[in-house]
């Protein structure tokens, strides 16, 4: 068999599997950290959106509009090429985590805000009538209920985040997509590399998507 998917090409790929594994590991690591900070940003900004301070709300909305409406790849470029000129140097993992968290966080905030709004107002009132402060009521009563509503769409954002981590390839991020790109360029073998990389993304994203769908069904059943 000849062509891009010849046995020889597959064999070459398998000989270098560890290189891909390394990229895969870095993708997982960047995604994990990115997701962690996405959740932090999402909850913090979501709380502000449901809060009383107009000034903070406006600030958060500006953040969300900006990050939702510019391509992630341009944001990554800015961190990589422009920030160093201002004296801010970040490693590629840091750039990956920061860019993914700021980008996905802008969507996560919307999810958190609507999940909070889905909890009946009476819950906040019941908690406050017992003497809980606003924040205590949020943490003890409202957010635990909002999690149920917000978890399925948040899991979908996790899938997006993992796939989006591939844009790090444009700044030599060292993650799976970058490894694939550079390995293919060096060996002039594209077929097996991109297919296998697609499968690797599928291996993490598909179960996560299925989890999202499962959670969604369960939350519909409970409601």
């Amino acid at each position, binding site marked *: 068999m000849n062509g891009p998917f010849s046995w020889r090409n597959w064999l070459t790929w398998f000989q270098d599997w560890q290189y891909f594994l390394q990229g895969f590991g870095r993708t997982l690591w960047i995604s994990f950290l990115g997701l962690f900070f996405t959740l932090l940003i999402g909850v913090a900004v979501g709380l502000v959106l449901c809060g009383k301070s107009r000034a903070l709300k406006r600030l958060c909305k500006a953040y969300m509009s900006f990050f939702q409406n510019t391509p992630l790849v341009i944001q990554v470029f800015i961190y990589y090429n422009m920030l160093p000129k201002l004296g801010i140097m970040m490693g590629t993992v840091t750039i990956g985590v920061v860019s993914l968290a700021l980008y996905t966080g802008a969507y996560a905030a919307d999810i958190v805000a609507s999940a909070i709004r889905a909890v009946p107002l009476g*819950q906040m009132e019941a908690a406050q*009538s*017992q*003497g*809980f402060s606003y924040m205590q009521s949020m943490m003890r009563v409202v957010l635990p*209920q909002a999690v149920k509503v917000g978890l399925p769409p948040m899991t979908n954002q996790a899938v997006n985040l993992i796939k989006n981590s591939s844009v790090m390839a444009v700044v030599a991020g060292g993650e799976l997509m970058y490894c694939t790109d550079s390995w293919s360029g060096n060996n002039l073998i594209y077929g097996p590399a991109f297919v296998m990389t697609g499968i690797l993304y599928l291996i993490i994203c598909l179960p996560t998507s299925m989890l999202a769908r499962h959670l969604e069904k369960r939350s519909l059943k409970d409601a």
Partner: protein
Amino acid sequence: MIRFEDVHVSFGNLEVLKGINLVVAEGSKTVVIGPSGGGKSTLLRTINLFEKPKKGRVLVNGHDMNGIANHKLYQARQSIGMVFQNFNLYPHKTVLENLTMAPILLKRGSKQEVTERAMANLAAVNMTEKVDAYPSQLSGGQQQRVAIARALTMNPEILLFDEPTSALDPEMIQEVLDTMERVAEERNITMIFVTHEMKFAEHIADRVLFLDGGCIMEDDIPQEVFHNPKNPRTTAFLGKILH
């Protein structure tokens, strides 16, 4: 003691309470009646400062709720229980946890004390066998009885009931009324009920207020308000309610 001094409350341009003057004695049981939109809920909600007076003040045990620091307000609210029309139990907590969460976290007693108190209050509302159930597994009447026990477990000095039976199916109303009646008789807690249950009011109230258009139109013992109302608006309202 609760004292309203010329209390005005507005939502935007709509004045909902128009200069309320009222003293509620410690341990007394007051029933508030009146047409929908008359300001009954707002009156209750002003006591724990869920609504702020635009003018005038509400004193609870001599303290102006509007003037105090936030942490003092939260502390004051611990002693002012509220029972809602829609129960508002915490759906992610069991019955027992609904009762114990706030008093434990807010240190209204040790965990053991609070749990013992909660079990006693569950017994008082006849809900002991549902101690481990979740609110969604209970009927409306059962939920409201748990909500009453939840409020009691805070050891409140004041209990506010905002139409506690209005959201219930007819066959469940009586069990909740009986529960409230028992609680009202047994506990020396200042209680204010907003309700349309006139028989209940006649049984337990020391005093009935008729609130209409943001003003107290009638304020007397239940026998007088129900059988010998002074204000024609009271007569008209009672005529509508009873038929």
